[in-house]
């Protein structure tokens, strides 16, 4: 079945430390992949996306993600976390050729400690 998995429910990182949030997908081909962030009381803001081409994509707020076909993964990274990065992060995928439905992971809550 088509699915997106975020193995980590909650991660705590010290301010200034690096961050990696994991995302795996299950699909027979390469989906379109997205990372969204949701701050408390806010909607889902797009951080970055991968459609094709360069497997390392840059996004807003200093985030990047790397698509690895061999691992069916699209992990999100940031070299130095800021306190304002504390939020919930969602990985999502568009899987079907003509489909419009984004399939979301369960999300990872990021806490930043000082």
């Amino acid at each position: 079945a088509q699915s997106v998995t975020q193995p980590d429910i909650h991660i705590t990182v010290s301010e200034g430390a690096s961050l990696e949030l994991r995302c795996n997908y299950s699909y027979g081909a390469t989906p379109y992949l997205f990372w969204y962030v949701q701050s408390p009381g806010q909607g889902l803001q797009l951080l970055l996306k991968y459609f094709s081409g360069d497997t390392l994509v840059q996004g807003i707020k200093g985030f990047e993600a790397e698509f690895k076909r061999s691992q069916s993964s699209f992990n999100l990274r940031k070299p130095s976390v800021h306190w304002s990065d504390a939020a919930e992060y969602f990985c999502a995928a568009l899987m079907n050729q003509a489909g419009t439905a984004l399939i979301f992971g369960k999300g990872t809550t990021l806490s930043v400690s000082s």
Partner: protein
Amino acid sequence: EPEVTQTPSHQVTQMGQEVILRCVPISNHLYFYWYRQILGQKVEFLVSFYNNEISEKSEIFDDQFSVERPDGSNFTLKIRSTKLEDSAMYFCASSTGVRETQYFGPGTRLLVL
């Protein structure tokens, strides 16, 4: 930067009542979507809408749900007779094309009592 807007931000209703959730998509976007997120669960796709027709819908989107674009700017989700399990955050989204980035609104938190 253009944004998707949603009203109301919060709505409380009694079980069995009808509710209408409203969205104003980004003005040059052609595809419109509704998703929901039950507390503690994944964001789930409900329906997509293009050219005044439903493009795709999930199993969740049963006869109790309907969508409409009543004018050139609004996109609505109607729940005909609400159930307790309809309590969730409902997100509207829009995109320029069928496999383009979907931009989300801030959501409407619906509580059914």
